[in-house]
Every structure is written in structure tokens, then in C-alpha cells.
């Protein structure tokens, strides 16, 4: 099919889709007039029943916890998939290109500061996710980003433990598998899968929410490691030629 034919088909199709959307929108409740009930019932139930002040995380890790389990595995499957897809790519580039890196002490100092700040923010997001905004996923991405920064500003040796599959793969299993194990533990005790079994604690404190913090940490580990593996896979042995010094070498 030539591009012209494609465009000729695409135009009317998008027009049709657009009219369908317009028709659907005409039937939606006006913006701000939404009347539930699902979410609003949960807004009233989650805090008293689960003692998590962040209802979104209560929904994510408890009421609809199985969705989040699926979500962790989507990320996991993606990491495994990318590892499979890029294995040839990396094999053919075993020879590590030597590039000059940022040697200036100030740049490195700022970099290290940013790494530290990023890690702290990531950990904070993970730790308080179910009390205030944040959570395992957000914290995980930020922490992984900070560690990758270490790779960009530091030297390879600093970063090596964070991209060794021998370290990361088992950790990933701890994160994703841990989530399933918490679910199974409830099942073994005779309750439903992923039932919240632990003490609920006081709302607004870190020790609240029963198994929600456990699942939150499991997913934080899973996400951090998954992101690290992804970045490592994409950056692996090939040093990104973004540094200006590299251009003329």
C-alpha cells in the first residue's frame, strides 16, 4: 500500500473515530459532575478499614492489589524481554569503548550530590507512599535514575555492582516474587489471596496499613531493579557518545 493510499484511508477513518468520540463525550457527565459510586465509597472505607491515609495507594496495594501484581509483572516481562531482544546487540559489543568522562572535580561533586539527593528523594517517596503522595513505583524510578547518574558522572567501577545481573536478577525476584508470596501467605492462612493480615497501625504513621507497606516495599524493590536492568541493557558496554570530548576522538 503506498503512503498516499494510506493517508487517503487514514483521513476518513480518523474523522469517523473523531465523530464516535464526540458522540460518546456528549453522553458523559459534565466535567466535575461525576457521581461515582465506586471511588467515593472507597474514599470513605479505605482509611477506617486499612488505616492508610493515601487512598490511592490503599486502592493500589490492597483493594485492587492484584492489578498492581499484574503491573509489576508487566514491568518484569518487559525487562526479561528487552534482555532477550538485546542479547545479540550486547554480545557483539563486548569490547568496551573507552571514552573520556567528566574529570572536572566540581562536575563530579555536583553529580555525586545529585546522586545522593535523588536516592534520598526516591527512598522518601517509597517510604511515605502510603501516607502521603508517592509510592513504590515513583520512588523506584527516581532511585534507579539516581544510580544511573552515578554511572554517567562517576566511573564504571562505582556503578558496576548496580548493573551486575548476578546481583540484580535475584533482587528482582525478591521484589516481584515477594509480592506473590505475600498474597500466597494469606491464601495459606485460609483467607483470600492478598488479604491484609498484619496489624493495621495508626493512620498517618509509617506503621499503618498492615501488609500495604510490605507490598509497597516489594514493588519498590521490583521497580528499582527493573529500571536499573532496563537502563543497563540499553546503556550496556556502549558509552553514550554525548560528551563533547568524544566527538573529535
Amino acid at each position: 500500500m503506498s503512503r498516499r493510499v494510506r493517508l487517503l484511508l487514514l483521513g476518513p477513518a480518523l474523522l469517523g473515530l473523531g465523530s464516535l468520540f464526540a458522540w460518546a463525550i456528549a453522553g458523559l457527565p459534565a466535567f466535575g459532575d461525576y457521581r461515582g459510586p465506586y471511588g467515593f465509597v472507597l474514599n470513605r472505607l479505605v482509611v477506617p478499614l486499612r488505616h492508610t491515609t493515601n487512598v490511592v495507594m490503599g486502592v493500589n496495594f490492597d483493594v485492587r492489589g492484584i492489578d498492581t501484581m499484574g503491573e509489576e509483572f508487566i514491568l518484569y516481562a518487559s525487562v526479561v524481554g528487552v534482555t532477550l531482544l538485546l542479547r545479540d546487540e550486547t554480545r557483539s559489543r563486548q569490547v568496551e569503548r573507552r571514552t573520556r568522562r567528566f574529570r572536572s572535580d566540581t562536575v563530579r561533586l555536583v553529580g555525586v550530590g545529585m546522586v545522593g539527593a535523588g536516592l534520598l528523594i526516591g527512598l522518601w517517596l517509597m517510604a511515605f507512599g502510603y501516607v502521603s503522595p508517592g509510592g513504590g513505583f515513583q520512588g523506584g524510578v527516581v532511585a534507579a535514575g539516581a544510580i544511573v547518574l552515578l554511572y554517567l558522572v562517576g566511573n564504571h567501577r562505582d556503578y558496576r555492582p548496580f548493573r551486575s545481573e548476578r546481583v540484580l536478577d535475584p533482587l528482582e525476584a525478591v521484589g516481584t516474587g515477594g509480592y506473590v508470596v505475600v498474597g500466597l501467605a494469606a491464601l495459606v492462612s485460609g483467607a483470600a489471596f492478598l488479604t491484609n493480615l498484619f496489624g493495621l497501625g495508626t493512620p498517618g504513621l509509617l506503621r499503618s496499613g498492615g501488609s500495604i507497606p510490605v507490598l509497597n516495599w516489594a514493588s519498590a524493590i521490583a521497580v528499582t531493579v527493573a529500571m536499573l536492568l532496563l537502563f543497563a541493557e540499553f546503556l550496556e558496554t556502549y558509552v553514550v557518545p554525548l560528551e563533547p570530548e568524544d566527538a573529535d576522538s
Partner: protein
Amino acid sequence: MLLATLVPLQAVAFALVALGAPVVVLTRDPLRQALVNGIYGVSLVCLFVVLEAPDPALSMLAVSGIGYPLVILAAVARVRGHERSKDEEKR
């Protein structure tokens, strides 16, 4: 009235997002697109904030600030790297 119930701030955020999407799509050079996509991501973050959704906003911020750029830039760099090494071979 179309805008009657929208708080002005929300209207601005929606407008930014609506403008941002075509710009991202129309930027055909991947490297520049990665940058534009980052800006689009930030406009989404603003939108989420004014829609009282701090959790998705943080998530979007993490993803569009760290997640997407790292994989996209790495991919762009590798593609260009290949092309460059191929050129070198030709020479």
C-alpha cells in the same frame, strides 16, 4: 458555555496538553522529539496536579523526567553510533 466550570488554571493546563500532543507527533527528529516529549510530560504533570491527582503526577514526573529520556536517548545514541561506525568502516 464551554469553560464555565473549569477553573482557569485547569483550562490552561488542558490547553497546554492539547497543544503539546501535536507538537510531539510532528517533531520528526527523535532526539528533539525526546526533548519535546519531556516538555509534554511536564505539561501532563501540571494537568494532573490541577486535577488533584498528586500520585499520578509524581509518577508521570518520574517517568517523563527519567524513565523515557534514558531509554530513548540510549536508543537514539546507539542508532547514531551504528551509523557512525558504519561510516568509518566505509572510509
